[in-house]
């Protein structure tokens, strides 16, 4: 059973439908009590890191997620869910969960032809092996849509990178936490495989 955290951060139903399609049991909850009993947690999200953190705090989900990380259960963040795992986001200068030391800066690009947000399919390169990334092959692309990107302080917290004028962290994690800046639920077969791997992951 995967518990999907509802913190008003965008389209939870996309992730739910992907898990349903894979035949993986799941539920959506906004309730920290449910989170405290969860055995496997997914926190997806699109939108604004500041708003996401405000809702997490308001619902007491910030403490529940930190407690879950401490319990060692498998946890996965997606997009804004990856960004809030870091110490801080530059988006509205928001203090975040701080599970991983690091920042979330905005793309400041020299090439005027590059649009912000970074939107579309980009190649993800695995830089450290991870169970969730075990089926990603060289050249595989995933769907991104974001203006801010994760920048962990510790190099070993970065598992995959993508390039948009410069390399940035596309997948990050530590211990029982794994998080992607891209959207596996919208990345076709390679994305679905990553979610299927999460359901089997024993960190």
């Amino acid at each position, binding site marked *: 059973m995967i518990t999907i955290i509802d913190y008003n951060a965008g389209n939870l139903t996309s992730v739910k*439908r992907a898990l349903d399609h894979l035949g993986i049991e799941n539920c959506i909850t906004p309730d920290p009590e449910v989170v405290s009993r969860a055995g496997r947690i997914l926190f997806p999200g699109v939108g604004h890191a500041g708003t996401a953190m405000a809702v997490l705090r308001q619902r007491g989900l910030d403490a529940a997620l930190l407690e879950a990380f401490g319990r060692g259960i498998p946890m996965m963040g997606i997009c804004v869910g990856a960004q809030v795992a870091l110490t801080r986001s530059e988006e509205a200068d928001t203090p975040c969960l701080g599970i991983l030391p690091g920042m979330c800066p905005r793309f400041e690009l020299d090439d005027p032809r590059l649009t912000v947000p970074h939107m579309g399919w*980009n190649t993800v390169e695995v830089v450290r092996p991870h169970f969730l990334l075990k089926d990603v092959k060289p*050249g595989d692309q995933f769907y991104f849509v974001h203006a801010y990107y994760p920048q962990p302080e510790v190099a070993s917290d970065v598992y995959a990178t993508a390039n948009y004028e410069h390399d940035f962290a596309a997948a990050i994690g530590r211990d029982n936490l794994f998080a992607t800046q891209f*959207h596996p639920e919208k990345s*076709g077969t390679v994305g679905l495989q990553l979610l299927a791997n999460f359901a089997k992951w024993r960190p």
Partner: protein
Amino acid sequence: MLSKRIISCLDVRDGALAKSVKFVDTKNIGDPVARARKYYQDGLDELVFYDITASSDKRNIMLDVVSRVAEQVFIPFSVGGGLRSVDDCAKVLLAGAEKVNVNSAAVVNPGLIAEASRAFGAQAVVLSMDVLRVAPTDAIPSGYEIVINGGRKPMGLDAIEWAKRGEGLGAGELVVNSIDADGTKDGYEINLMRQIAEAVRIPIIASGGGGMPEHLYEVLTAGRADAALIASMLHYDEYTVGEIKMYLAGRGLPIRMVNAEG
């Protein structure tokens, strides 16, 4: 490197697939959900569903289509046509779309772009614009005019100005549809796309006129579009997604190549 996206537009009327030529004489050509699934499996990057249902009491049919697509198709898709309020937008997002596509209603009420952008984020709001070539005037210096209601009503609004305004109001992407090129299969309106791409810093999806892979290459290079919208090339089985992508990748464009999707 970010890939150039190949997007297909499915016009849906009363729950069935239609293809318009110069916005008149539509004819039904099949089941949109089955088509969407096939294109997804063939490696298409994204889908747009445009609801051209005439009567508002049949609008719920579209929500059912959106929901069934979302259960089977795991690439991003947007939905447009007849979205007049944030509530209308919320319904299609809840049914499973990533993005909403606003067009005529946003020209009449530009506040809709800002409201939807605040409510759902800029990434979820696509401003679709129908553009007609006209003689340049003081009001329309570019010679490209915004028209609404399926191309029937000219608005005295310059397309370049409207694109910039849409970006400022919070649109995350632009679909630029040339009515002159639509349905001709003679190629995209390259000059229009390039002018808009140079005026804004959000992604441009070029629409109207795609008839062969060379046309996509032109608009994704000379036209500086980030994505190309295609319809009849795929709907009439003239090309497969794979053939188009092989061609573009062969000419050196960054393209997402996939094996058959499951």
